């Protein structure tokens, strides 16, 4: 005997009722059901949940299909060898897939655990796909010199849910870009990246949404022996936006580089949350997050390194978060956490929030640079430090930062 769907969520909001209705329209599937049940345990996450205290989706998501602005320009699509486009009815792709990359028709990999900790990731898994499209896009990478592939998420005025699983086989390498350019009242996407021994992943994420959009991007990245992930995020926020990354070092000598820059203007909320579990010895994590926030904007940084007593021995991990409050009225919440039980580790963290340096501003103005330009130059230099790892896309991201500052 199963619980009637409408009773899955306690005291549901109108938006949650809509989500239940959407789930009811999906074909029956045991995995979807598990995912939705996990989501229903909390409903839309809210401020009384410790990990969501500054990003209250329950309060902010009023409806699922509320009309909004069309999606923004996607700066990363050009130049990609293959583009997967996610729309409210599933995904489509145009180009022939490059050699070394193929789609898996049947799920050949188990979904990762831990969905109960990622309510919006579980929701994405429950609602992705449609009657005519599989719930999950699964890709397998066997090549090591593939051109970049791109995932585009634009909502076309509806809700948008997607789930992608990417398996990177031993020694294989992949560069992916993901753009979340809004256009949906509410969207949630779950990415699961499995990096097998010595696999490499470069992940570049671009997010920009409108004042009435809610966006959640959840990624689980599992690293096996000597696997390496380099992640670069540039996010401008939305009414509420959360980019959550959960990395698990599963085997020895894995390395994760997590870089992010956020720029929040008036009416924008951007939450960068990460959780890194050092579940194997001799693993490395380097994380730098830089933010700049204007009056009426909100930035959230939550970072956690979890280093178990035996498994996490010889961990080397560094977490830095630095935010610029560019105007009175800018708000930044930061919670860096190191949870370390192992005794032979090198772990460090730093967290600063402040205004632009008056000495620097005066020096620049004394040389003839007008104040507005000096502020933009300093802010750009500040956040660009976090975007150095974006490789060839660094110039595009720099241009986006510059355009925002102008």
């Amino acid at each position, binding site marked *: 005997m199963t619980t009637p769907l409408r009773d899955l969520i306690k005291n549901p909001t109108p938006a949650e009722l809509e989500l239940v209705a959407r789930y009811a329209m999906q074909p029956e599937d045991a995995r979807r059901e598990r995912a939705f049940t996990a989501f229903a345990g909390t409903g839309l996450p809210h401020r009384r949940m410790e990990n969501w205290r500054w990003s209250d989706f329950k309060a902010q998501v009023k409806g699922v299909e509320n009309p909004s602005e069309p999606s923004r320009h996607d700066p990363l699509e050009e130049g990609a060898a293959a583009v997967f486009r996610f729309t409210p009815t599933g995904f489509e792709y145009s180009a022939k897939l490059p050699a070394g990359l193929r789609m898996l028709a049947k799920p050949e990999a188990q979904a990762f655990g831990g969905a109960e900790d990622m309510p919006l990731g579980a929701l994405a898994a429950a609602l992705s796909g449609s009657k005519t499209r599989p719930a999950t896009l699964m890709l397998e990478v066997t090549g090591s010199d593939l051109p970049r592939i791109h995932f585009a998420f634009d909502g076309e005025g509806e809700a948008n849910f997607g789930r992608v699983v990417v398996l990177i086989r031993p020694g294989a390498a992949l560069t992916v870009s993901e753009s979340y350019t809004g256009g949906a009242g509410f969207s949630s996407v779950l990415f699961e990246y499995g990096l097998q021994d010595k696999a490499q992943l470069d992940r570049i994420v671009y997010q920009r949404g409108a004042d009435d959009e809610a966006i959640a991007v959840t990624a689980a990245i599992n690293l096996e022996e000597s696997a390496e992930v380099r992640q670069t995020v540039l996010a401008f926020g939305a009414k509420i936006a959360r980019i959550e990354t959960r990395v698990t070092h599963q085997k020895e000598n894995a390395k994760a580089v997590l870089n992010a820059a956020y720029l929040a203007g008036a009416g924008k909320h951007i939450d960068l949350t990460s959780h890194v579990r050092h579940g194997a010895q001799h693993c490395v994590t380097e994380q730098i997050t830089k933010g700049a926030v204007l009056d009426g904007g909100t930035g959230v940084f939550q970072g956690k390194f979890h280093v178990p007593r035996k498994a996490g021995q010889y961990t080397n991990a560094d977490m830095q978060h630095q935010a610029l409050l560019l105007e009175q009225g800018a708000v930044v919440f930061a919670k860096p956490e190191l949870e370390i039980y192992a005794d032979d580790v090198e772990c460090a963290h730093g967290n600063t929030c402040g205004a632009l340096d008056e000495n620097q501003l005066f020096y620049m103005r004394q040389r*003839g640079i007008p104040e507005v330009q000096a502020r933009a130059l300093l802010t750009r230099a500040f956040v660009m430090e976090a975007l150095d790892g974006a490789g060839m896309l660094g110039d595009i991201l720099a241009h986006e930062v510059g355009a925002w500052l102008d």
Partner: protein
Amino acid sequence: MLKIDNLSATVGEGEDVKTIINGLTLEVPAGEVHAIMGPNGAGKSTLSYVLTGRAGYEVTGGSATLNGADVLEMDPEVRAAAGLFLSFQYPVEIPGVPVMTFVRTAMNAQRKQRGEDEISAPDFIKLSREVAGKLKLTPEMLKRPVNVGFSGGEKKRLEIYQMMMLSPKFLILDETDSGLDIDALKTVSDGVNAMRDPERGMLVITHYQRLLDHIKPDKVHVLAGGKIIKTGGPELALRLEGEGYDGVLGEAG
């Protein structure tokens, strides 16, 4: 050229307001180099900040004009475009902004303010190469962020580089000799001397007579208690070196 008349300025707010410049009068004609010497706390650096428009100082009386234009009414960047350049006692580090980008941005901003065309990239690079060569600055140094990782001497040379690139009408050198060894002092002084011009004035602020062996002033002023209390030729600097400020000030008081 630069005319300061009965200037007074305060620093601080509320009960902490302190008068630092107190009825200062000074005129530097075009083509001349004037030195300002004085004991610690006399107001030397404050004078340079008040003239260039740093926040935190309030002008409470008097005037300062450059070629007849009231500089005290202008924003700092407008003063720069009008030709006022300050070589900082402690040049500021600007991480993430390479020297070349910084100076070219400054140069073009000044030109725009004056209604002139931007400098072309080839012209800028050619000029930069010439100036850097004179100051023994390597191309690699000019690619680094402004003042980041520069030694004290390199920072001062970079100030002179900016000065020569921007070619201002009036120079204020604030303790340019501090932190310099003998060789660097010579390089910096040669740079400053190369800027001497019948159309250009200079105000050289210093603690010690040493710098004035290299940059020969036309006049020396002694600043104490926020005003000029004595003016003389280069020999005044030598006397200060010999007798100390107490000796010379005692006589003036």
